[in-house]
């Protein structure tokens, strides 16, 4: 029950949150907070009290019989990679909770139910060592996520939610087919029917179909990642999702794709991966450049961040298929760093939207004047995301590039182009939004027309007119038009920033922790690099 408890806590917390709504509308978010803190505490106690078995890759292992008929087990294992990603999940969950705290005001119980179940699904994905179990969690995390987007999202939420779900489901179906095909071929070759990762990894299948099975897995993960041709769901989903959901999407959900490739694709299909590697690397480079270009041409802040995610996750893909230790470490590092920085950026965009009711770069500029703290944070994270040395993102991208250079120099060179483009769009975003004279156009709150209306209403004696116009807007208080960051928001952003800095200046413990799991992954490949 050690590991499954980790999944059960948020599941039960979610149910409790839903149920508690009937008593007090504010109860659900408190319960969620306690649930997340409880999970964190639990995982902390777990890792601190148990002796970290350095000799084995696996820190914890737990297995229950599930579906006897197919020898499917509920098998959970945790190694360094999972541990790090679960920690990321919980921490970013907290960040998302912080942004949800004030933003979500309708149907709170159901919101936190979905929120916690998504997190539980993601934790399950990071822990599941049985392929079917993995698939189940993979799909299960989507349904609550779908609800999050479809109910609490912005103006075009239905379309976005549907697109998100259809894309990931199509990928999921392919994965299901591939999983079963893998198991069937494995069975035919070894006579052992098992969906268990630990069993399958021992004897990678030799059939020529492996290439296609592998492709099925890769596509499923690429959709989630998302890489270039499979990305169209992402900008919509990110844009339309409520901020907490955007944070979860960008910070954690995308990482499951990278995790899947590292955990399953690489060790299970050594030959096929070699075969696909060039194609995948070129896709990665395409994603990097395409994402950056698209980010440059957007004027919706959330879309910019979303496309920058495409670009950044391209590095993860590049790292994964470079097939050496440095690149893999880089990829994981990039995943973490991107998780932190994009979460923070989405949160910031959410804050801006909360205040200005717009995310459109054309609608406002010069925010620095009224929101110095917010803008400073924005500046910091934008720079982090463009890969400023000393921060986590730099380490990740650098390691990936080094690793890729070892494998395919040309790809690395092209990918580094992405770095430059990244700088361009990040700086454009900063420049357009934070600097320059303060103005807002067309946003609800500061619409000149509405101000005029209000004036008319104030001067008019007609009750009708005032009754009609009065609810339109509150008269802006000129002294402090919009509040700057609150303490809670400040705290959250600061801790994320601290995390990024920590990753940037002292990544070594993390890299050490990753070494053993990644070495296991690469054990089947001839080329293995050494840790930095």
């Amino acid at each position: 029950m050690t590991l499954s408890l980790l999944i059960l806590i948020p599941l039960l917390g979610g149910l409790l949150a839903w149920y508690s709504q009937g008593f007090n509308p504010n109860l659900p978010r408190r319960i969620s907070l306690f649930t997340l803190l409880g999970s964190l505490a639990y995982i902390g106690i777990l890792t601190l009290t148990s002796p970290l078995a350095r000799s084995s890759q696996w820190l914890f292992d737990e297995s229950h019989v599930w579906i006897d008929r197919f020898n499917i087990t509920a098998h959970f294992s945790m190694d360094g990679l999972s541990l790090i990603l679960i920690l990321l999940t919980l921490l970013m969950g907290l960040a998302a909770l912080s942004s949800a705290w004030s933003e979500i005001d309708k149907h709170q119980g159901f919101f936190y139910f979905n929120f916690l179940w998504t997190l539980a699904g993601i934790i399950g994905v990071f822990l599941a060592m049985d392929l079917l179990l993995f698939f189940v969690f993979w799909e299960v995390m989507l349904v609550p996520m779908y609800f999050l987007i479809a109910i609490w999202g912005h103006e075009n939420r239905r379309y976005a939610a549907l697109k998100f779900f259809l894309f990931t489901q199509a990928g999921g179906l392919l994965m299901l087919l591939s999983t079963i095909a893998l198991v069937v071929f494995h069975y035919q070759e070894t006579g052992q029917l098992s969906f268990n990762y630990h069993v399958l990894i021992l004897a990678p299948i030799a059939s020529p179909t492996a290439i296609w099975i592998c492709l099925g897995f890769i596509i499923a993960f690429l959709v989630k990642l998302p890489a270039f041709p499979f990305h169209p769901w992402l900008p919509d989903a990110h844009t339309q999702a409520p901020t907490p959901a955007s944070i979860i999407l960008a910070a954690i959900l995308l990482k499951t794709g990278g995790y899947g490739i590292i955990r399953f694709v690489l060790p299970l299909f050594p030959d096929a991966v070699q075969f696909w590697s060039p194609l995948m690397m070129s896709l990665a480079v395409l994603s990097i450049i395409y994402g950056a270009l698209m980010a440059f041409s957007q004027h919706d802040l959330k879309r910019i961040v979303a496309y920058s995610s495409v670009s950044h996750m391209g590095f993860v893909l590049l790292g994964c298929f470079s097939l050496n230790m440095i690149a893999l470490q880089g990829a994981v590092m990039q995943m973490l760093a991107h998780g932190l920085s994009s979460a923070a950026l989405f949160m910031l965009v959410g804050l801006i939207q909360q205040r200005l009711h717009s995310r459109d770069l054309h609608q406002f500029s010069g925010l620095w004047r009224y929101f110095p703290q917010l803008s400073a944070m924005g500046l910091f994270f934008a720079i982090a995301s463009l890969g400023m040395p000393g921060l986590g993102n730099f380490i990740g991208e650098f390691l990936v590039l080094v690793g890729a250079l070892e494998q395919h120099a040309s790809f690395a060179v092209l990918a580094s182009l992405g770095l430059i483009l990244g700088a361009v769009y990040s700086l454009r975003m900063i420049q357009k939004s934070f600097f320059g004279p303060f103005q807002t156009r067309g946003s609800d709150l500061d619409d000149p027309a509405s101000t005029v209306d209000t004036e008319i209403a104030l001067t008019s004696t007609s009750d009708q007119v005032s009754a009609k116009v009065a609810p339109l807007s509150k008269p802006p208080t000129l002294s402090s038009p919009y509040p700057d960051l609150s303490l809670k928001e400040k705290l959250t952003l600061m801790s994320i920033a601290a995390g990024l800095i920590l990753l940037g200046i002292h990544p070594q413990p993390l890299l050490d922790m990753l070494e053993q799991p990644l070495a296991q992954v690469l054990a089947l490949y001839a080329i293995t690099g050494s840790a930095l």
Partner: protein
Amino acid sequence: MSNHYLPAGILLSTILILLLSIALKRSHIHAFLITGVGLIGACLVQVSLIEAPATSELLFIFTPVNALVSAGLLVILVFLWSQLYHWLDKSDNTNEEYYLLLLTASLGAVSMIASQHFASFFLALELMSLSFVGLIAYSNNNPNSQEAGIKYLVLSAGASALILMGIALIYLQTGSLTFDAVSTNKLQHLASSPLNLTTSGMIFILTGLCFKLSLVPCHLWVADIFEGAPLPTTALLAIVSKLSAFIVLWRMFSYGEWQTDSTILDVIALVAVASMLIGNLLALQQDRLLRILAFSSISHFGYLLIMLLLLEGNASLLNDISFNLEAMVFYLLAYMITLTGTFSVLMQLENTTSIKQLSGLFWRQPLQATCLSVLMLSLAGIPLTIGFMGKFYLVAAAISGQLWWPMSFLVIASVIGLYFYLRIIMIMLAKTESASVPCKLDIREKVTSWVIIITVIGVGTFPSVFADMLEAVTH
């Protein structure tokens, strides 16, 4: 006479008693109770027969699989029956005969599931079809119902004629009416009939059964019938009639030499793929719930049809040919359970025909909306629902049989299907302008909804019990 005949016997005597009681004194509650006693009795007996040893007679064959499927069917019928009283009590028709027709239809279905002879198959089929005509046209004052009834009559009679033609040709060729006549008499070609009549006979039968299962080239009018019939009838039609027809199709397939006839296999593969795609594509454009269900059922049977291609496949999971059967039965039952749930919810949401009327249901009646969402997810095959396990079995069997190209269409069709299942959920999530207060559900509706949710999620999450039973039954 083995005690395998007992469930059908119970049904038959219930029919007679009910008929007599209606003749002597009309009373809705009596009719309801008599039907219930009969159905539950038959159901219990059938469940206890699952473990009984298999026997085969000339007309009927009783295997554990049959027993399981019949038991599943009867359980579903009992479940539907439990909601019938409330539904019928509101209409101003006389209600007693509805139970009568329900019972005759179920008697037909139960005997059809066990038949292994063309004569018994044909009689059972007609018993069922003709009862359905009555059930569909039951609403006295509703012209839609009459129209659906006449359409069903023409369709089913046409289908019967086609099936009969097929049977006649096979009989002419082989001189026997048993399902396995084709395989045993294959070599003994008649001098007087130079044609090879068996293949054409099979195609006739297949076409007829396609009408009964409303598979693609024969899906004419099916949505009209679904929509026009009274709702409980639609449920029965979608569940009882299709389930039994499919079981019979499977048995004909596994007994005759059909599996080795490449023409037939090609036709089936084509029908399967076309049904999957066209069913889902047609459902995309629909705005009315029952039409969506009608078309989605076409595609689900398209998926199931793939299983027929596997019956004689040599590559199979666990090197075990009966795994395919297991997968088929699982999918069939899973789909039927989901469908039953869906219709139950629809029966609770009376007068809801268009999906627009579902708008905002999540905020009005959260329990029902949750229930319907779970069911839609199950139909779409999302994990942790029973529908997913069904799909898992299906895909596992199909991949073991290396049916790659139908599989690829399955993926495409599933994604299309996902779209309209999600659309229903999406509409329920829409916020309604009118601040409607949640309606109070009575205890019956609550219990029904919970039973559905727990079954669909429960079996979907922990399918082991079910799977083990299925494994035991199919071996």
